[in-house]
């Protein structure tokens, strides 16, 4: 009996969101209740799927009951379950924050768009079909665009045009890539593509290599890999704070898709692809890390600082991906979980600060309401993102360094020097924001709504990092198994029950 739960992370928001549009569009309280209930339910479903995926081999869900590769399949494996869980945790934190700070009252349809966004994310993580991945990329692109320009405003709309414009280029490219893959392999099912690419006639190698570059470029755009990262700082810095926090997972969709495609069908094992992807990814990843770190040091606003910290973390993840070893992949996944939560927390903190200072600029201003508490949160968030101990960022960095021993001199140098820039950048920012205000001698700003729920949600994200640190051992063991399964995709392929694979 096939479990319908696999598709629940897509269907639930796909029903709840239109319901909100249909009957609750004029009542914010109802939207909040149902939106939050939806996110909580998604969390519960994700947890159940995570447990199932931990104990069972990958499982396919045949949509429309059509056998693979002719219909669309969803595949639940450890990686997709992990991404679902991560999304749900992040979403819950962000949504609580939004409700507490009334961000959802600044424009229309926030909760519907939010749920659609989750649907897009979940769909992208679950699908086992290359074209369907495109469809869900579209869902999350349009929903994220809606969230990004939520509340409007000149700068935000301008940045929104950049975001949608650049990503539409990516969408077009995705279609080119899909067309090429289909023209060569005659299939869209990822597992089937894997089978076909592995057995590809030699004369088709050039085309599939070009297709791989095109497709991975699309994912790299999502994942902000240099030189395709230019859209990110403006977008994230101008998006509403909590939306930018949710976007912490958006770059990870790119990372996920790169990992999935390059371990399943564009693998280094296939003669046509060979070491091409790793060779291309490593230098780009190292530059990404460096650019992100430089950006943190040179950021002019807190939001941009957070955005560049996010870019730097993507650089770290891609650096580890490029090794294509289970150890490095496992390290990258650990770092991925960490950086998603940490980046999100920092964006929320940035929003708390900006909301109280009335400006995002990193300059000296009078003290703000709840300064001590916010400064404390910033300190913890900065430690996390700079990869300082004792939080998971440090452990993640150690894991990556340890796993990348092979190329130690270059990679270690870049990673450690970037860490230094990050430390300097965060120290400068924190010192200007929270210390210099004591020197202005002006009275603190008048009171601000205390918004306890907002602080709880930020605290919860940071607490998740603490948990990730304390339970690093079991988490890493789990990720080791996940990474091993990724690099041995036979189980994933078997779940599809392709007619020509026994």
């Amino acid at each position, binding site marked *: 009996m*096939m479990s319908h739960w696999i598709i629940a992370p897509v*269907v639930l928001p796909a*029903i709840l969101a*239109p319901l909100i549009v249909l009957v609750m*569009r004029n009542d914010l309280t109802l939207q909040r209740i149902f939106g939050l209930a939806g996110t909580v339910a998604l969390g519960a479903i994700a947890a159940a799927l995570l447990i199932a995926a931990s104990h069972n081999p990958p499982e396919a869900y*045949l*949509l*429309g*009951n*059509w056998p693979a590769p*002719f219909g*669309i399949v969803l595949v639940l494996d450890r990686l997709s379950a992990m991404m679902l869980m991560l999304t749900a945790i992040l979403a819950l934190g962000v949504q609580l924050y939004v409700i507490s700070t009334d961000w959802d009252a600044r424009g*229309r349809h926030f909760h519907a*768009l939010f749920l659609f966004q989750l649907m897009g994310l979940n769909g992208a993580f679950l699908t086992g079909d290359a074209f*369907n991945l495109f*469809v869900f990329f*579209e*869902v999350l692109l*349009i929903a994220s665009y*809606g969230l990004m*320009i939520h509340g*409007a405003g000149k700068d935000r709309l*301008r940045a929104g045009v950049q975001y949608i*414009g650049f990503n539409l*280029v990516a969408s077009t490219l995705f279609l080119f890539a899909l067309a090429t893959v289909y*023209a060569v*392999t*005659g*299939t869209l099912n990822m597992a089937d593509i894997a089978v076909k690419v592995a057995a*590809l006639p030699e004369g*088709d190698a*050039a*085309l599939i*290599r*070009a297709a791989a*570059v095109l497709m991975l*470029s699309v994912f790299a755009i999502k994942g902000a890999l240099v030189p395709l990262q*230019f859209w990110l700082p*403006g977008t994230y810095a101008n998006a509403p704070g909590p939306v930018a926090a949710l976007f912490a997972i958006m770059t990870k969709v790119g990372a996920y898709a790169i990992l999935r495609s390059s371990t399943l069908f564009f693998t280094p094992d296939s003669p046509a692809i060979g070491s091409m992807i790793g060779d291309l990814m490593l230098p780009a990843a190292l530059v990404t890390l460096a650019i992100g770190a430089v950006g943190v040091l*040179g*950021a*002019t606003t807190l939001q*941009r600082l957070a955005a560049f910290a996010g870019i730097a973390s993507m650089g770290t993840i891609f650096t580890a991906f490029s090794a294509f070893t289970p150890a490095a992949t496992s390290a990258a996944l650990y770092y991925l979980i960490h950086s998603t939560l940490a980046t999100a927390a920092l964006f929320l903190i940035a929003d708390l600060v900006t909301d109280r200072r009335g400006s995002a600029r990193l300059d000296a201003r009078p003290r703000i309401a709840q300064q*001590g508490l916010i400064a404390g949160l910033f300190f913890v968030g900065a430690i996390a993102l700079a990869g300082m*101990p*004792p939080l998971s960022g440090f452990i993640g*960095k*150690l894991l990556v360094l340890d796993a990348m021993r092979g190329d*130690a001199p270059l990679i*270690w140098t870049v990673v*450690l020097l970037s860490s230094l820039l990050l430390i*300097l950048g965060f120290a400068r920012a924190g*010192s200007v924001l*929270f210390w*210099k*205000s004591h020197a202005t*001698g002006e009275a603190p700003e008048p009171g601000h709504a205390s918004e306890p729920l907002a602080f709880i949600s930020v605290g919860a994200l940071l607490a998740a990092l603490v948990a990730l640190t304390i339970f*690093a*051992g079991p988490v890493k*063991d789990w990720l080791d198994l996940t990474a091993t399964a990724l690099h041995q995709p036979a189980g994933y392929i078997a779940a599809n029950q392709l007619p020509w694979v026994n």
Partner: protein
Amino acid sequence: MTLALIAALPFLGALLPGLLIRAGRTACATVTGSVTALALALLALQAPAVLRGEVVQTRIEWLPSLGLNANFMLDGLGLLFAGLILGIGLLIILYARFYLSKSDPMGVFYTYLMLFQGAMVGIVLSDNILLLLIFWELTSLSSFLLIGYWKHLPEGRQGARMALAVTGSGGLAMIAGMLILGNIAGSYDLSVILTQKVVIQASGWYLPALILILLGAFTKSAQFPFHFWLPHAMAAPTPVSAYLHSATMVKAGIFLMARMWPVLAGTPEWFWIVTSAGLITMVIGAKIAFFKDDLKALLAFSTVSHLGLITMLLGLGTAKAATVAIFHIINHATFKAALFMSAGIVDHEAHTRDLRRLGGLRHLMPVTFTIAGIAALSMAGIPPFNGFLSKEMMLEEAAHTALGPDWLLPVLATIGALFSVAYSFRFLAHGFLGPVRDDYPHKPHDPGFGLWAAPALLATLVVIIGLAPMASAAWLVDAAASAVTGTAQEVHIKHWHGLYSPALWMSIAAVGGGFAMLAAFPRLRAMWDGTPRPEAKAIFDAIVEPLAAGARALTQALHNGSLTRAIAIATIAITATALWAFNSGTHSPGTREMLAITPVTAIAWGLLMFATLGVALIHRNRLLSLILIGIIGLIISLGFAWLSAPDLALTQITVEVVTVVFMLLALNFLPKETPRESSPVRRIRDAVIAIGAGAGIAGLAYAIMTRNFAFPSISAYHLEQSKPGAGGTNAVNTIIVDFRGYDTFGEIIVLGIAALLIYALAEALLKPGPANDALRAMAATRTGLAGDRHPLLMVMATRFILPVAMMIGVFIFLRGHNLPGGGFVAGLVFAIATVMQYMASGLGWTEARQRIDHHALIGAGVLTAAAAGVGSWLFGAPFLASSYTYVHLWPLEEFELATAAIFDLGVFLCVLGAVLLALNSLSRLARRAGETVSADPYSVDRPEGGN
């Protein structure tokens, strides 16, 4: 578990003061002190075993796959350091209670202090170098908070950042070093690494590891050339300086060298690097200290100097020197903490620490003078205090070691000692001796017991160790030295080494020279002031500030928000990479036969090219380009029809109609011409990029279209199963609603969201604000409008067309499953029929007759499609599984009922709702922009004044 608890207690205790400050300052301090005392007591309980030579261990698995575990060990070295950290920590807590003023947030202070204490205890108890790294970096972080505690002082903020930058970067280097070390030794556990001396020193990676680890140690312990941060960290409150810079933080580097001594020391590399760094630091630090006027700065550089001394001793690589180093660590901690606290008392009472403004305090502050006097004499190495003992032993060691020429090391050591005497005496002479002045910023007197209790205790220790070293300290030195060297050590400390001991004469020279220097101070000072010398802070700023400015400039220049540039870079990068990837693989050209070029196709192709080029060339004229885009759309529709894809043709043509209407509405709000924004050079550049990428895509398309699938494609299955499996003969439709219905489900949601977005954006624009004002202003500027906005003929015609169009829509919907058509096209046809009403009769008229809200249509559409999908669960089938049957209903012919039709209905509703909502939103903008509408039936509204 005890060791883990000792390390954890300060961290747990860090939570308390922040809370308990609400119960009062004394309660806060008491609780903080109790936690430290508890940890100290636990440590004392372990002491007997350690002194017997055992190594106490606690092992907790944390991240075993990496080799990072919470393993702790306590040996003699750990006991010594942990004792110093907790013991002096306790005194600092007491001292700080009375030192901090009422306006200083004491709870925060103690919280930071405890965090720091925990990190330090963690370092010295770690049995795992990765764990040690964690604590190591934690000390950098917590000291950052402590040094910057007085947030309002710029020196505090800068000093904190400098300390973090220097020690933090050293820590990063150390990460690399430790990872290399662990790799060589095969374990990250110290207890294992310490047994691997031969392997480690034989490894080719020994030198990199050594240098990287020493970078960590030297930065932390402020060794030359990293000594500059320490004095700037003196902006911290004095209790912090006393703690960090006497007993703890700066000793962490020393601890590390001592800890690693068994495996790293003993090589020429170690000897040369460590000894010379130590020696240079000792001399330079002492020299600078002598000329500093600020009491704390003087003490800070003297600390630098003494740390250099200890480093040098460790660098010598002999067990005896290491033992002396250990002894000096103890002595330095006692007298230096006492001195810092005394300096703090002076500052607290006289409100200045400037030696030029002090003097004569001997009479005003006798207690403080006694304490400071004992400690300073010890620092100078005057008998019988403890500083004398270890200094003699140091000189003894120096006298027997050659660094380059034989005389060099002894001479330099003597010079260091000489300076040491000089600044110690200056501290006393210029601070406490001399006549009482009447121009102190604040009339000083001895503080209350609370403030001088801690330094007094330390001064007592200075005397006791000085008088009875064997009884009071030797056992601890033995235990620690044995742990450092790995062999049992027994130290013999004595005051008198005999007349033939070179140390005696070196010492006498040092004391004599020191006195002479002090006597000559004014002249030396003038010389010193006259010599230019590099100012550490200036150099540091000269590095860091441009770095930050450069980072800002680079970041701003790279990420300036230019979309065109971003896309240009992406296009170049992706095209080049794809081309490279293609060229580095084998390519066999396709073998498909080409179709013949007929005149019709040639004309269509020519039109397509013409229109496409036209758009690129005249894109600044928006209306004209829109028309050309319409031509492109039409040709593509024709192309689909010609290539036997009627479904696609039908969809394309309806989409084209709707798109053009949309664009026309949007053009309403845009200037007729786009301003010229790029220079000719830039346009040429862009043209080259675009043509290059376009050529690449064309080549790709050509390659794709001229070749056959490498493997049988899945489409054969779709064609074969369309009727028997999905119940429809139109494979395109069955793919859309059945085989790949899930894709369609996603796409209608995309469409629905897009419409919601347009609505939300329009709402935002309609709110009062600048954008709204701009819209309103547009109305006034409009000229050249047609007088008759709703021509009667068109109004009448569209109203007749409406039911006909809807019939066609229903027809297209129903036949969809078997013949070209379907819900998507039907939705568009319905939408077009409605749009015609908008265009002909105006928004108000149409809206007044519209009973179903567009939002509801979208919602209902998605829900219907979802229901069709979820419904199959009831039959135990997966989402979107379809079923069909044939029904015979008189008088109709037999017809098919398929669940896919329900899904298609959802598609239909969603498409209709989405298109209408989007159009409606744009129309509402038009209305806001000043258009008038009438909602009367059959009436025709006119623009104002356009009679």
